């Protein structure tokens, strides 16, 4: 496995694990409060919908000429990465509340209890609320993962590796969640989100500039400078914000 492939696998694994932890919290909240049966049908329906998105977008993305693919995907990854990084910098500097799965679980549980008595949905679904909330949670969290898997995979001509990393992350999170039967509060989500922001921004910078026609000094090895460079710049911003707001 090359360094770039390792970076790809690690980025997808971390991003997918973070999204899977958030989706798991939602499913656990509605499942344990209202109906496991309907919540799990919601998960299944969301996975089918995500598979349909991959089926529709996958061939279109992978058939683009490489320079067009790199500039488009690089630009999108940069936009996504900078959003992740901004939120991570604000969280690390204390200007935004840290993401807390226990608090998210409590909110989802309270909302599920306040939603009233189960409303019957389609034949096998005994609670429409559990189905809808589970579906929405898994689909929306999964959409970002699908995007990351497709873009990273297509750019490196290795969608299989990206998909394997994403599948591994989901399996690990689901296994840990079902073993614990509680939200995964011990997962260092905020640090993982910071890392994902750095990786998305670094790969976005690399591919975006390359697709636009720039030649990186050292080729792929430039990523070895970009990743720590962007991490250091982000940490410097955290330090500056902490000092400025002290």
């Amino acid at each position, binding site marked *: 496995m090359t360094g770039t492939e390792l970076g790809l696998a690690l980025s997808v694994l971390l991003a997918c694990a973070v999204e899977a932890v958030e989706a798991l919290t939602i499913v656990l909240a509605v499942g344990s409060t209202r109906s496991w049966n309907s919540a799990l049908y919601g998960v299944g329906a969301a996975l089918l919908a995500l598979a349909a998105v991959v089926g529709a977008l996958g061939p279109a993305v992978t058939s683009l000429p490489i320079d067009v693919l790199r500039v488009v995907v690089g630009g999108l990854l940069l936009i996504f990465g*900078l959003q992740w990084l901004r939120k991570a910098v604000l969280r690390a500097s204390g200007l935004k509340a840290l993401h807390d799965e226990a608090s998210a679980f409590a909110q989802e549980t309270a909302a599920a209890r306040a939603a009233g008595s189960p409303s019957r949905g389609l034949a096998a679904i005994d609670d429409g609320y559990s189905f809808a909330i589970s579906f929405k949670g898994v689909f929306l969290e999964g959409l970002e993962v699908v995007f990351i898997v497709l873009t990273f995979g297509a750019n490196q001509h290795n969608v299989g590796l990206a998909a394997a990393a994403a599948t591994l992350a989901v399996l690990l999170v689901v296994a840990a969640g079902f073993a614990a039967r509680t939200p995964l509060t011990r997962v260092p989500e905020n640090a993982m989100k910071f890392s994902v922001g750095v990786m998305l921004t670094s790969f976005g910078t690399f591919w*975006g500039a390359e*697709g636009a*026609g720039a*030649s990186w000094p050292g080729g792929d090895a*430039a990523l070895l400078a970009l990743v720590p460079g962007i991490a250091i*710049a982000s940490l410097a911003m955290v330090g500056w914000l902490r000092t400025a707001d002290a």
Partner: protein
Amino acid sequence: MTAVRKAALAVLDFVVGDDWRTALGVVVALAATALVAHHTSIAAWWITPVAVAVLLALSVTRARKRR
């Protein structure tokens, strides 16, 4: 609002997120990189990383001012 319009707005919201200025800045940075790479003899690789640092700093500063 038609379903198509709703879907287009949802896609736009998903891609651009809550800071359209950063998204616009990324597009401008990549266009500048392409311009310099294809129409001058100056190395263009440094433009995007510099733009990324500036865009992140501006985005964080805007968010800090809003709080």
